[in-house]
């Protein structure tokens, strides 16, 4: 086994030093009847070359597409080479959680910079070192809002939240007796303000709104804030596509008390949905309630600036069952990728990328609407995703696309009865005009319903 530092003479020396004949003798703490007295029924060890062949063959069983128009929570953005190169350094990817700050200043300073950038993008004051993904960050935001609001027990969620986020929220809120999740309806693709007003009682701890939402529509957070604030509830924005922050104002500047969501778009691949990057940013007033790790700036004995894990009294290893969350491992390396990405892009780059996303999505929508089979559904501003109704057979249309190496938009039919025949399309800076024209050509060839 190539990874084991085993040599017969040394193995013997180790056993002799311990004073046992065989390694198995050290299992004496396990009662014999509880041991596995047979070999594992698994294939034998394999060479590096053999394993690479096996894994390459598995990867090849996935269908690869030359053009991809699917987003819905996982976005295809360009990953600059420097991101992969930097994060392949062992000092970054093999290190543990920075519990010994004197030998982890690299990780600690990098997370401090990451925290600064997430605060800048969201327009809020405090963020943690990362959460698992957009869905679990949404759960933590809701639980935090409920803790903050003390006796209020209702969480209002806009139906525009990603349906998977809604389901994960439901999974995690259900065990808490007394807490209620209530949906607010949509109207023309955005949160229905009349329904929101009707449901915004004194028991509401927070209101969670997609920004942009699952259907790609940009919600007017300011208008929502103006309704939520007087009712004494917290406003939480949920962003499944953080690249939109290059196009849209930070939620904190529009009245949100917390912003959470998914930031995989900064320097990561779609990777079958993970590892992704959950973020949760809050107003300064809530910093002692936020879950997860926080990095703070301080001085060492000689007065030099350094960084440490801080406010740990919120966390599970200190507070046990009174902790703000059970989270321990987070998505640190994914946060590092986002950090590198954002530093490479800078303010001009990020705005430029966002503008390209908007331009490509608008062009894609315009070209699709020129085809008789597509109809507009909502009249709302959007960033890089939008909904169109397809009047033909959606599954057949997707099949026609995949036969031509194109990953078509998402079939929304399973998500709501009101979305029958609707499809969700996405374009990013990686989408080319030629890909869009090819898509249009393929779609135009599909026989019409006649």
């Amino acid at each position, binding site marked *: 086994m190539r990874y084991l530092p085993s040599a017969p003479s040394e193995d013997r020396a180790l056993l002799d030093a311990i004073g046992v004949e065989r390694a198995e003798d050290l299992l004496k703490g396990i009662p014999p009847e509880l041991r596995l007295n047979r070999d*594992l029924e698994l294939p034998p060890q394999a060479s590096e070359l053999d394993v690479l062949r096996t894994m390459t063959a598995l990867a090849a069983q996935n269908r690869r597409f030359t053009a991809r128009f699917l987003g819905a929570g996982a976005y295809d953005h360009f990953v600059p080479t420097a991101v992969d190169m930097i994060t392949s350094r062992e000092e970054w990817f093999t290190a543990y959680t920075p519990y010994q700050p004197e030998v982890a200043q690299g990780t600690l300073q990098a997370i401090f910079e990451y925290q600064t950038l997430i605060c800048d993008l969201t327009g809020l004051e405090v963020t943690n070192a990362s959460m698992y993904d957009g869905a679990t960050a949404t759960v933590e935001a809701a639980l935090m809002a409920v803790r903050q609001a003390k006796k209020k027990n209702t969480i209002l969620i806009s139906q525009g939240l990603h349906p998977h986020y809604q389901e994960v929220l439901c999974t995690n809120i259900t065990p808490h007796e007394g807490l209620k999740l209530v949906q607010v309806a949509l109207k023309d693709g955005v949160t229905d303000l009349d329904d929101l007003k009707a449901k915004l009682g004194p028991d509401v701890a927070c209101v969670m709104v997609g920004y942009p939402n699952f259907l790609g529509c940009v919600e007017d957070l300011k208008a929502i804030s103006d309704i939520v604030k007087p009712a004494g509830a917290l406003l939480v924005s949920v962003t499944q596509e953080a690249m939109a922050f290059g196009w849209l104002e930070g939620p904190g500047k529009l009245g949100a008390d917390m912003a959470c969501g998914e930031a995989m778009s900064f320097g990561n691949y779609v990777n079958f949905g993970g590892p992704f990057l959950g973020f949760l940013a809050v107003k300064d007033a809530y910093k002692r309630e936020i879950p997860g790790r926080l990095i703070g700036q301080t001085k060492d004995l000689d007065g030099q600036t350094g960084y440490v894990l801080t406010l740990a009294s919120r966390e599970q290893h200190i507070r046990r069952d009174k902790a703000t969350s059970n989270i321990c491992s987070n998505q640190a390396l994914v946060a590092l990728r986002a950090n590198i990405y954002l530093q490479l892009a800078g303010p001009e780059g990020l705005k430029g990328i966002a503008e390209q996303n908007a331009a490509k999505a608008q062009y894609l929508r315009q070209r699709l609407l020129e085809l008789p089979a597509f109809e507009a559904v909502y009249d709302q501003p959007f960033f890089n995703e939008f909904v169109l109704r397809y009047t033909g057979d959606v599954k057949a249309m997707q099949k026609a696309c995949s036969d031509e190496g194109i990953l078509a938009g998402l079939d929304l039919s399973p998500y709501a009865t009101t979305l029958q025949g609707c499809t969700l399309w996405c374009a990013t800076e990686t989408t080319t005009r030629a890909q869009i024209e090819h898509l249009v050509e393929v779609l135009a060839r599909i026989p019409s319903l006649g």
Partner: protein
Amino acid sequence: MALRTRESLIFESSVPGKIGMDLPKLDVPAATDTRPTHLKRNAFEALPSCSEVDVIRHFTRLSKWNFGLDDGMYPLGSCTMKHNPRLNEKTAALPGFTESHPMAQDIHVQGNLALMFTLQEWLKEITGLPAVTLHPSAGAAGELTGVMLMRAYHLSKGAHRRVILIPDSGHGTNPATAAMAGYDVVELPSREDGTISFEDVTDPSTGKIRKGFATLVAELGNEIAGAMITNPNTLGIFEYRIKEIADILHGIGALLYMDGANMNALVGTARPGDFGVDVMHLNLHKTFSTPHGGGGPGSGPVACIAALEPFLPRPVIVRETAKVGEGEVPKHAYRLDWDRPESMGKVHAFFGNFGIVVRAMTYCLSHGGDGLKAATLRAIVNANYIRKELTGVYHLEYDTPTLHEIVFDDSIQTKKGVSTLDIAKRLLEYGFHPPTIYFPLIVHGALMIEPTESESKQEMDAFIDAMKKIAQEADENPDILHQAPTTTVVRRLDETTAARKPILRWTKA
């Protein structure tokens, strides 16, 4: 060559106009601005302007202040800092995987589904449990999934049980998880050999009686949903009465959850499913060699008994079968089954940290069944070698046989005013990452050492030598230890001020 000892925050070296990333020229008409004015992104306050060179140098310099696994021995107890094979990184970066979209149709991601299904089969054989989900993103997420499975099971029987029993030696995530799943936590005391006490225990410092497992079961009965037990426990000791604990719990309709953080001691030697465990999580970032990444991402698969399977997070992967004569044979075709009426629901937006799952599968294939067992045995040998060499130099509170890790403490050194923290900081100057310190909580001044199977005799001898020298220094010149470290990029940091007046981001002066 001397390394730079200062690297300013990137924000301080930003020069407007610089850029480190560019894009092809826009090949479609510019966007029409449909945003209401107040929703338009205003200026950024911190986002820096740098060239690619600036950014690469920044992160390269910062990286040199980190101690990584390839810099030397990293014996963090309970963390299983084993070698991170480079092949795993290569396979996880195959474009067939990285480009695959989580909302794509099943027919387009057959490779991913086959891989996940196969790893589940391996984990079933390793744990002796018949069902596995790969969705949880980390150990704590696995715990939460596991405890919610227990909850769903009890609810299906119409029972509202409110209590979870957790040993005082358990990881902090256990009680935090139980609380997140809506349970009350009742602590189980440890006995003098470091295992769970069935009998009541008198706390020597307070004189208070702490109820043992048998008493708690008798008193709380069907209030108990289950127990969360780490095995081997955080002292590296196998809970030798685990089967009896399981039988007693099952007798009152409760379940046994096992925290699998220490599974590196059991792979190929004993299977939780064979000693009464109903549900457990594994840490792919510990036992299965996936990198820690400076804090994550990890992956925390959950394995469980058949009675819990209907409640697993959805979707689950199903292998298609073909009819052959009277019977059915498995096909090389897989699908995601979303139609799971009893499922606890989703626990992640998609399927968890898939990239980590690819790495763990690669590790499994490399090792095979025989290599996995060889790794376990070597990990146990290594821990016992260090135990043998350092016993007497450092105090060993529990002298019960241990498996993959060993917990010493500072009680010999405190006589000279030297603490575990001093020992850890001095170890940095000898070029080693310190062990886990001050955990488990039941050992005062704990030094928890887990060498893993990756360490050679030479590396361990150097570590043992350093630990012995430090013990000698503690005796002869304790001030060296109090001052340590002096050779690192920063010295000991003021954590009190950091918490009292938190500075959690950079702001423009």
